């Protein structure tokens, strides 16, 4: 039995959880309610500070594993958490503010734990802890039947997804004989290589079901149908949260599961076909559905589906694209790093857009939602308008916005994976996937442009106006500021994404059959090429930044 994990390693989560309780109690008195958002902010920052002191932490036990990936997810979740808190500063009704903010903190606690979960049980619980507060936040953020309807839909499908995930987990547990993920890797990936055995059947069913359930968290097709309703019914700042928290949680879980199947190390299992179809379907369906929306919230929701599709491209490529033998995989070879970068950038841009929507009111006091509502915003609220446009350009992936760097990494890693990796046998499919993806990102430009056009090009006699609230404005501006920073200085975030995957890369490498180079089939190579498949490093040019060292800060 592994020794229990040290409490100091869990300190950030403990701070968050205790903070959540404190905020909950603060909500009992009027004075406390005024204080609650500040305390929330302090808790998040304090937790982040602790995380920063633990950057080289490697600890395991009690179903948790703190390594590079957990570090990245902690930092990302807490930083985005600060933004989310700012944007949601005064979202709930005053008497519910304590509850609202404490649920927010609990959801983030879950997200942190998802990043560190190394056990099926822990992973499931953490996913649930991430999700359940979001259902409530949707309902609490506003009065009226729309919030209730939205929250109910989200909740029901979330419960279904949880059941499906748990069912899949149960099979994986059966194959591995233990719930520990690290211990399960060899069993599951070995089972997937022996068709005809019971273990194969169990593993196959488990993997497919698990991934299917996780697609819900990612809002990927075909489990996307709820998302637009949910976004539309949710208050805008909460919808901004929905674009990040469940997605990052789903992705973190997906990484663990894909690692489990041995897809990255040996290309086996149902992962490739499944995710390929899902990626294509998500991109296409999301973009096509987004095209005909008039509500910006629905539009962003469907665009989120498409973005989930892009992210899956990186998940497919895996953390080991360029060089399976040397262990060196740069950004363009590391799909997972790109996904991590992308989800953060997407989260910020999405949150920024929703923050703008949440900040504004129509002249009649209603919520700003349709394109008509924001028409001519530039004249009345120039900062908001520019921020919205910036967010849209980022989502569109226009260079040099951070969204572009994300797509660079995602598509580049898929192309690299098509060349030289354990999964190079899927090469042509990967290339086809990239082409579909770029065409989709062009298609997506059409609807993002509609928003931009509405905001910047159109005139409107009755434009929306700011509803006040300084913190949400600060939050929105911070989103914009971060987007600009990441546009011109993306190295830090990209590098930290890269170092975050050291853990996954190492694990994949460890699981890779010894002669990875031999596995790579010759048909992926050009006929006349006599070069080895793996990049030699003998030309004196070492990696510019060694993998595994955080380049952030």
């Amino acid at each position, binding site marked *: 039995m592994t020794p229990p994990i040290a409490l100091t390693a869990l300190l950030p989560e403990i701070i968050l959880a205790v903070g959540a309780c404190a905020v909950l109690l603060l909500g009992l008195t009027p004075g406390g309610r005024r204080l609650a958002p500040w305390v929330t902010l302090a808790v998040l920052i304090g937790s982040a500070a602790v995380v920063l002191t633990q950057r080289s932490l490697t600890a395991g036990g009690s179903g948790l594993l703190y390594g590079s990936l957990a570090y990245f997810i902690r930092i990302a979740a807490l930083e985005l958490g600060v933004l989310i808190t700012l944007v949601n500063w005064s979202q709930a009704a005053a008497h519910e503010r304590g509850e609202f903010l404490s649920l927010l903190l609990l959801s983030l606690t879950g997200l942190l734990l998802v990043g560190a979960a190394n056990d099926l049980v822990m992973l499931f619980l953490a996913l649930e802890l991430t999700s359940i507060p979001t259902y409530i936040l949707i309902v609490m953020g506003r009065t009226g039947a729309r919030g209730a309807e939205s929250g109910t839909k989200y909740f029901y499908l979330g419960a279904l997804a949880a059941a499906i995930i748990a069912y899949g987990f149960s099979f994986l547990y059966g194959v591995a004989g233990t719930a520990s993920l690290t211990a399960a890797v060899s069993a599951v990936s070995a089972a997937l290589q022996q068709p005809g055995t019971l273990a194969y059947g169990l593993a196959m069913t488990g993997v497919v079901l698990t991934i299917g359930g996780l697609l819900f968290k990612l809002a990927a097709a075909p489990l996307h149908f709820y998302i637009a309703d949910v976004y539309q019914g949710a208050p805008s700042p909460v919808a901004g949260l929905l674009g990040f928290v469940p997605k990052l949680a789903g992705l973190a879980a997906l990484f663990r599961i894909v690692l489990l199947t041995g897809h990255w190390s040996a290309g086996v299992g149902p992962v490739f076909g499944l995710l390929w179809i899902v990626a294509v379907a998500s991109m296409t369906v999301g973009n096509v559905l987004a095209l005909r929306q008039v509500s910006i919230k629905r539009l962003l929701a469907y665009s989120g589906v498409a973005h989930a599709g892009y992210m899956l491209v990186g998940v497919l490529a895996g953390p080991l694209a360029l060089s399976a033998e040397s262990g060196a995989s740069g*950004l363009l070879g590391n799909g997972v790093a790109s996904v991590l970068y992308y989800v953060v950038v997407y989260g910020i841009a999405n949150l920024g857009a929703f923050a703008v929507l949440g900040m504004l009111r129509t002249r009649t006091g209603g919520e700003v939602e349709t394109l008509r509502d924001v028409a001519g915003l530039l004249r009345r609220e120039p900062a908001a308008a520019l921020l919205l446009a910036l967010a849209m350009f980022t989502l569109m992936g226009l260079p040099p916005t951070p969204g572009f760097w994300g797509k660079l990494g995602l598509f580049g890693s898929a192309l690299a994976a098509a060349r030289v990796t354990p999964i190079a046998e899927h090469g042509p499919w990967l290339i086809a996937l990239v082409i579909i993806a770029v065409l989709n990102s062009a298609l997506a430009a059409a609807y993002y442009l509609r928003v931009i*056009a509405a905001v910047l090009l159109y005139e409107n006699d009755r434009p929306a106006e700011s509803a006040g609230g300084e913190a949400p404005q600060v939050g929105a501006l911070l989103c914009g500021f971060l987007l600009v920073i990441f546009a011109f200085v993306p*190295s830090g975030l990209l590098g930290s994404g890269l170092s975050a995957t050291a853990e996954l890369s190492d694990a994949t490498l460890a699981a890779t059959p010894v002669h990875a180079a031999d596995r790579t089939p010759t048909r992926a190579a050009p006929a006349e090429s006599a070069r080895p498949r793996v990049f030699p490093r003998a030309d004196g*040019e070492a990696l510019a*930044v060694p993998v595994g060292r955080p380049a952030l800060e």
Partner: protein
Amino acid sequence: MESILLNVLIFLPLGAAGVIAALPERHARQAGSLALVIGLITLAASLGLAARLPAALAADGPDAQVGQVQRDWITVGGVALRYHVGLDAVSLPLVVLTGVLVPLSVACSFTAIRARIREYYAWLMALAAAMFGVYAARDVLLFYIFFEFTLVPLYFLIGIWGGSERRYAANKFFLFTFVGSVLTFAGLLYLALRAAEIDGRSVIDFDLVRLSTLRLGPGGLTAAEQSVLFLALFAGFAIKVPLFPLHTWLPLAHTEAPTAGSVLLAGVLLKLGTYGFLRLSLPIVPEGAVAWAGPMAVLAVAGIIYGALCCWVQRDVKKLVAYSSVSHLGFCMLGMFSLLPIGLSGSVLYMVNHGISTGALFLLVGMLYERYHTRDLDQIGGLARRMPVFAFFFVLFVLSSIGLPGLNGFVSEFTVLLAAFNSPRLGPWYGALGATGILLGAIYMLYATGKVLFGPVKEPVGTPDLSGGLTPDLTRREIAILTPLAVLAVVLGVYPRLITDPLDPALKSQILARLEQAAAARPVVAAQMGPAPRPEAIFGEKDRPRVAAPRPKPQVVPVAQRGGPLR
């Protein structure tokens, strides 16, 4: 010093854009003046850089660059993206052209733009920065970034200050070009990955020189890869050019754009496509270029004829000029894909000349529109009597555009057609068909000129509208705008070697030699390229391409020489 100039070229307008956008309300009227000053400074900077070119050429040979700046930008595990800019003989003429057109387009907006002035000039300046950036970029990804970034300012310029259908036009313009360029993006990514693989480097970069000196033949990109990569690049550039079936966004965008937008669009932005073909497609995937040269030329010729025929039936004079661009850029592409030295240099020359003459024509149409609020050929006529100065410039630039000997258009059109006739890759039929474009050009241009300038005076009711300090004929400001272009038209018509002298060796060493290499590396390519053209097709014996001669320079330039090791 030079690098400062180049930085000025790119960052000054960018900074100015920010400053102008942030000007306080009461200083809004100074926005135009400020922009003009900035424009003039960039013009001076581009001229200054141009002036340094001969010395640089003398020192470093035909590939010499002026104003080279190289900084590591994004250096993350395994990827190195550099901010690397520099101007060589190929890009410098286009930069100077841009430098000329930017202040002119600022100046022509003084009276035309009345609303949201600060925003307007801010976007204009941002556009200028992006355009300079594209031409200066020496890193393929940087090129792509600037290339894409031009879309944003122009989108707003068209969408806010354009005509009645401006939003539709802006969207269509944006989407068309964006769709193409994302495919290009995928191609570039694949290219960079393969390049690193071929060179055996563990760091992926997008260095233009490295990519355009990539190993050819066995061990390099396969023929199929080259073909596909060419198509990927084609997707972005051909839409930008625009080549024939992909041109539909252009007339709309041109027509709806404000004058300055049209000028820059026609004068500079369309050249981004041709420049992309020249800079990227040909040297990086020469085999693909050779393989696809035929279809490219077919499209070019189709564009020439189709564009000309469309011009013929236009009643909207601005649309007419727009369609003429389709036709003219067809010439440009035809010359380029003749794959002959004169074709290439003629093509570059054509880019510059088209920028001058078509830019000027758009300026003139804009001036006309400001006075008559119509561009309908049926509603105006006989204006030569009202506006003699206008008529002078109009006729001058029309003739330049048609290709009257002595004016700039002639030289480029002639060389391009000559190359097409003589190209062993294409064959004379292309030249012959292309030549009909000249004929048609003369017909529609002169027809339009006749309708606008001559015959009985015809003016819509209530015009000319002389508000905003206009005079019936051109004002002094407008004359000052047109004069430099007129001078350039004449100078380049008389002495095109101003451009071609430094250009030819650069083209030869950077592009033609690359094609030769490709031919040498693979017999298929050599067969496709055909035998060496007849000597009389070449200006002078010394320029005869030495097909099989070994290149003196090493194929792969060591990193250390090109700017030191990474980081």
